[in-house]
């Protein structure tokens, strides 16, 4: 199965130069780069690298779009004011899984003002990656989000903003549909049968899978499409207050607990099942749309080696161990 096609064009060096200055002007630039500890992170770049080379950063774009501690408003002199305008950023060399995750965030935060402001101030450029042994992206999954994609001298427009940038650099009329040069899928994101899931509430499978879970929350923290948040106030001595949303985690025991102590999702088995449901079946208006992009981060981050794909396999094979 090929990756989807987008309007594409091969650029001449002078056209690339014009495009690079458009991508860089007035913007901070970031890209995935290995740090001194060997772990790849989104790091500031002095300039756009001449040659594309995508790598999967430890934390995805959610770090920029729904940052931990993002201000929702500030309260000063008895007034509520919205957050300051976000920085203008260009992030280059993201792999396709992270572009698919971006498409998911764009969907679920479509009406969220702080997200929209950050998204509109962001340009995202993807590139083909070298898939790792333990990731399993799916060309049939979500249509990749972002603005541009590049491989060699060829560029693709993934959004109207990206298309306008290409047209400005190369002149109108030369773009033609071309599949993205994504990796051969190394596996498949599991598909989960909703009926089988619905009938599995009492299956020991969940408690067994969660038996080793430390409820550390690493899996959700690194997942590019996990986006639960808690809301906290940050008061200062001068009387100003900033309300922030901070990353939350459905593995934490307070997640479904209400005043008086009642917990609507007691036990790790039920919490693991909740995360599983969110990833593979979706919530609310997005029921039926999987938000797992197969990046493999959760399995890699888990200190005890829990893998949702294995759990999905067990569920598909039928009840029981």
């Amino acid at each position, binding site marked *: 199965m090929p990756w989807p096609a987008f309007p594409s064009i091969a650029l001449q060096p002078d056209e690339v130069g014009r495009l690079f200055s458009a991508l860089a002007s007035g913007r901070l630039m970031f890209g995935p780069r290995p740090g001194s500890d060997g772990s790849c992170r989104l790091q500031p770049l002095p300039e756009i690298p001449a040659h594309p080379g995508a790598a999967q950063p430890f934390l995805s774009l959610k770090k920029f779009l729904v940052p931990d501690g993002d201000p929702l408003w500030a309260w000063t002199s008895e007034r509520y004011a919205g957050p300051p305008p976000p920085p203008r950023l260009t992030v280059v060399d993201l792999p396709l899984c992270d572009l698919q995750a971006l498409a998911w965030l764009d969907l679920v935060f479509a009406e*969220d003002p702080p997200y929209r402001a950050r998204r509109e101030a962001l340009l995202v450029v993807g590139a083909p990656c070298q898939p790792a042994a333990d990731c399993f992206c799916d060309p049939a999954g979500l249509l990749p989000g972002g603005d541009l994609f590049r491989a060699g001298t060829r560029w693709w427009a993934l959004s109207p903003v990206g298309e306008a940038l290409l047209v400005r650099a190369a002149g109108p009329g030369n773009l033609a549909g071309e599949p993205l040069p994504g990796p051969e899928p190394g596996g498949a994101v599991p598909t989960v049968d909703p009926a089988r899931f619905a009938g599995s509430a009492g299956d020991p499978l969940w408690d067994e899978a969660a038996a080793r879970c430390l409820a550390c929350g690493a899996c959700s923290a690194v997942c590019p499409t996990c986006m639960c948040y808690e809301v906290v*106030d940050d008061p200062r001595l001068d009387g100003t207050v900033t309300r922030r949303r901070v990353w939350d985690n459905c593995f934490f025991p307070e997640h479904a607990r209400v005043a008086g102590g009642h917990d609507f999702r007691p036990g790790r088995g039920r919490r693991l099942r909740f995360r599983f449901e969110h990833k593979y079946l979706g919530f609310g208006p997005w029921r039926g749309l999987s938000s797992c992009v197969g990046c493999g981060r959760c399995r890699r981050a888990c200190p005890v080696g829990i893998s949702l794909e294995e759990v999905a396999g067990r569920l598909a094979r039928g009840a029981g161990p």
Partner: protein
Amino acid sequence: MNAGFLPMPARIVAIEPLDRDHRLFSLRPAQPFDLRPGQFVEITIPGVGAFPVSACAPVAAGLLTSCIRRAGRVTEALFQLESGALLGVRGPFGNGFPVETFYGSDPLLIAGGLGIAPLRALLHALLAIPERVGRITLLYGTREPGALLFREELAGLAATGRIDLRLSVDFAEELSLEEWGVACEVGLVNDLLRAVTFDPARTVAALCGPPGLYRCLIEELARAGIPPQRIFATLERRMRCGIGECCHCVTGGVFLCREGPVFSLDRLRSMEGAI
């Protein structure tokens, strides 16, 4: 009211103590707004936090009135405030009770504990349209007689024949309710249900109470013959956004804050973990 996360400034204009842990707070938001019975808002105390709350009366003259229990960190801070304090309000959120479904029916309202708060808003909305609804019955149970909220008001409505009121308490150290001329049973709300007569074909039911109340009562209403599409319950969950993002309220794959918090029984049956 307003979109996004910015609260609308709202001043406390009246505080009426009901008992040690329950007070009636009247807030005046800076702009006019509407809130249907069963919908909710998020009240902010800047620097402390926020919590979701329903109104216990229809919005009148731009006032939001909520019956609030001192239940934890933020509500405790609210109980320290006085009239005039400036808060924030976001909303309205959620669907609320479908008041039109009660047209032409005999409403049967069933409240447990603080569940009386949103049901009182519904009750007042129904009392405001006497030509459209039939006989209103309210079954209301609490742990002990001292915890019955809105006693005088409810007893007054019962005394003038506007509602058929049945009260129950789990424990009774002092059963002093006879002085208002209202019978009060010791037992569970279920016992009240068995004691009232209603025509299931004419009845539309609305419930609000702790999870235990739904578990033991809601299917009993269906067994008594009320169609499940005409039995409504409002669900309480941890809620932090009200707009289907934070994921705390999700139950059976549904964002309760957006699609609920009020659901009919036929819907609830398909939502795992709802009741």
